[in-house]
């Protein structure tokens, strides 16, 4: 690259008012996005801590009561230390880079009360309380800035290279004096766009250290390196697109119009169309039908509790029903929830299938729009992707089934569980997806993005090396 061109760009753009303004606005936006993300993460963490401590304290009280009934030997009231009253907290902690993306976190539950009183339909409750107007608009986080706004800034600083010089007539002067016009144009493009991306990565890197809040910073650093690589790959794609437009189109106005049209298509239109196509082709099952199935199951179970009890005891020949240690209502509630789980299982499976089908449509969309690829990958690296929240819900339902299977024999036969069995029962765990799997699951779209970026840059350079008449 020409040193003179770098110095020229630094003096006329980076240190001049327009350039400083662009970089200042970008810094402010990134800073605000990271601040918002960090605040959201802290709010979620505080909420989870409160939730866990409430349930743990109630569980401790329950366990103490159970221990007393075991050690005292006296006949306790059926309402003391009931098996149905075991509660365990299921929580989804914020991802390692949660301050980089809010993602699906503003719409989906991060807590579940694992209790035999709940069934898979009503397991997640009271989280749908946000202002729907604000939900519909979406949040302002770093991922949104990188995917939607940074390409616009790249277009804004690059579209008039070399159109402005061409219009003023100074391009011919530069061509006459400079050994390579290509290098001159290329240097200007690189300097301006590199400045933008160095700022993005630099500010984000500072946040990795400043916003750690107890997360081991080596974990954050490794994730951040992957995040930065994906972000830069996305930036490289846009750089290639901008360079190609600059190389092929002569008038700055046409370059700007073409690039804005491409941005609108890739960032707005394609993702919106993909959602619409996914919704039309693979509509999710009706939540209302899911609800209806739950209600029918509950109603039937309430009417048929004796039949269900007999059925349960047939499956557990080692048990006999007793009215002494647990209220009868516990049994009917437990069996009703078992019926709900059984009958809504197919609908749950249909939701999962619909989600998988829509994911396939979105996977195809990644090859049409790099914004979709970048959005998915950056959210997944930050731990804010929809799949992670869905896995949490699936794991919570599984945990509920495990707890129900654990307490079921005791509840239906009217007995208590033992302290030893309770202590041996596995508490909640949620295994995170390793970084290698997050990346390998997105390997093809990212590779496609890399190939597209390289191809665009190569074509642009080839065009810029074309004969001088074409450039002038």
């Amino acid at each position: 690259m020409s040193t003179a061109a770098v110095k020229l760009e630094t003096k006329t753009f980076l240190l001049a008012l327009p350039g400083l303004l662009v970089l200042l606005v970008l810094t402010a936006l990134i800073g605000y996005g990271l601040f918002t993300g960090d605040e959201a993460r802290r709010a979620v963490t505080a909420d989870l801590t409160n939730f866990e401590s409430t349930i743990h304290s109630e569980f401790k009280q329950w366990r103490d009561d159970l221990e007393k009934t075991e050690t005292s030997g006296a006949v306790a009231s059926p309402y003391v230390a009931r098996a149905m009253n075991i509660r365990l907290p299921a929580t989804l902690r914020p991802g390692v880079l949660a301050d980089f993306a809010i993602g699906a976190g503003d719409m989906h539950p991060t807590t579940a009360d694992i209790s035999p009183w709940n069934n898979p339909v009503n397991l997640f409750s009271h989280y749908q309380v946000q202002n729907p107007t604000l939900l519909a608009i979406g949040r302002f986080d770093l991922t949104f800035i990188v995917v939607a706004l940074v390409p616009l800034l790249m277009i804004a600083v690059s579209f008039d290279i070399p159109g402005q010089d061409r219009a003023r007539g100074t391009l011919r002067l530069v061509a006459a004096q400079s050994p390579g016009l290509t290098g001159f144009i290329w240097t200007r493009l690189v300097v301006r766009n590199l400045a933008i991306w160095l700022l993005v990565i630099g500010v984000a890197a500072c946040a990795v250290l400043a916003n750690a809040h107890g997360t081991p910073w080596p974990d954050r650093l490794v994730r951040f390196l992957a995040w930065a690589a994906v972000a830069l790959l996305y930036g490289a794609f846009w750089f290639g697109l901008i360079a190609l437009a600059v190389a092929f189109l002569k008038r700055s106005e046409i370059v700007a119009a073409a690039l804005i049209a491409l941005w609108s298509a890739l960032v707005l239109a394609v993702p919106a169309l993909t959602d619409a196509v996914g919704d039309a082709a693979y509509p999710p099952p009706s939540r209302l039908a899911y609800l209806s199935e739950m209600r029918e199951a509950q109603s039937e179970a309430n009417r048929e509790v004796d039949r269900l009890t007999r059925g349960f005891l047939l499956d557990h020949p080692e048990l006999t029903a007793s009215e002494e240690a647990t209220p009868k209502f516990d049994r009917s509630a437990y069996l009703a929830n078992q019926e709900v789980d059984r009958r809504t299982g197919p609908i749950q499976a249909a939701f999962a299938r619909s989600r998988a089908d829509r994911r396939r449509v979105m996977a195809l969309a990644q090859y049409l729009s790099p914004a979709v690829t970048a959005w998915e990958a950056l959210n997944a690296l930050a731990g804010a992707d929809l799949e992670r929240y869905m896995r949490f819900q699936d794991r919570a339902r599984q945990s509920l089934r495990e707890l129900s299977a654990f307490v079921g024999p005791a509840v239906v036969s009217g007995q208590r569980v033992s302290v030893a069995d309770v202590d041996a029962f596995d508490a909640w765990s949620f295994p995170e997806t390793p970084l290698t799997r997050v990346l390998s699951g997105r390997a093809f779209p990212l590779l496609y993005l890399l190939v597209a970026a390289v191809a665009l840059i190569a074509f642009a350079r080839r065009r810029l090396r074309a004969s001088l008449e074409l450039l002038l």
Partner: protein
Amino acid sequence: MSGALVLKALLWKELQVLLRNRTAVALGLALIVVVLAAAALGRQRSERIAIEREGAERTDQQVWLGQGERNPHAAGHFSRYAFKSFPFLSGFDPGVADFAGLAVWMEAHVQSPAVFRRAEDNGDGLRMGSVTPAWILQVIAPLFIFVALHATVAGEREDGTLRQLSATGVRGISVICGKLAASGIALGSVLVPAVLAAVLIAAPQEAGAVPDPWLRTTVLVAAYTAYFIVIALVAIGISSLFRQRRSALLALVAFWVVGTVLAPRLGADVAVRLFPEPTAEAFRKGLAEAGDPNWNDPEFLKQEKARVLARYGVDRVEALPFNYAGLQLQRSEERASPRFQAFYGGLNRRQDRQERVLRLVSLASPALALSHLSAGLSATDRLHHRTFVDAAEAHRRRIMKQLNTDIRDNAGAAGYDYIADASLWRTVESFRHASPAFTPLARHYLPSVAVLLSYLAAGFCFALWAFSRAVDRSARA
């Protein structure tokens, strides 16, 4: 040369220039096609949702009537669901319909929030836009107008024809009116039919009714027309500020990005930061505290019992001429009602304040003002959702009163062993709700109307001032 002739000549010339802009013509045609396709998709979606809802209502009634014999209080805990209807313009502008709950469980002792948001089943998208007529007209149509009009004055300055125009002595206001009229005819012939057709296609014949569909539709079309005029005025004004087409286009695109992409998101974020919403755990705790004033207040229970016994001149509840448990249950509902009202009132007030922040931000974004008005007229905004939630709560209280009164009057000595059957369940009416008329709610939308009208007036003044400045500068150049 008379003013009318000048205007006619300007109009004809501007129309020719616009029609020769092949990019703009192609974009305009594409816009019509996309809007109509979106309207058809919206209608299909509305009809599908309506079918789902009708099925859920039928099942809910069947399940309620078929629950067999049981204690009415147990039935009150099983209770019924209220399902939200989707108004007839939801296909045109779904507003917040996907982000607000579809159903409310009308359970005893608890005012539950609305549940089942359709957006949770959607993909993991950028949430940058949706293929609905309203979004396309609010976000994409301005871009089309800017592409069509960015060179309307800047192009004349760049080509040197503005000096010639000003040398003829024609007044600035005549030129503005001519350009605006030409833009209005050219763009209006694309956009207004698109809006009308979209409204007609997106409105299914049998959908949740509003009592004033024609008023809403007329005001909606007027609002979008005013918006397009504002955008055209901004385009003409900004075009007048610059000497070159490319600078004008860049400035207009920057205005568009700030108004449609940046301002709404930043505004929503600032709103949440200034007025944060309760966390899920805080909400649960608050709701539990609001709903349980009776059974954890032994002093109140004792006083209440003494009062009732004294009133009927007996010394024990078994001697009362009705079942005391039924009375207690109803008292607990009545005691909890104002607490629920205060709890949800606090939440609503916070959300109102959040939206006031958005109204302020709409000063920088006419698109935000229009989106508020459009969703309101389509009956798909948060305000209309609240009327559904409030109606569900009123119905819940009616149901609980019916069931508790039945226990009070008929349970006798049986107490909680008293059982009722389908003859009682049949007396409980199904939930019915229609969106309210727009006129009583109109005051909530006045700020957005004021923003649009202000933009209209300011836009005209700005275009006139900018054009006069451009003429002046080109004359001096």
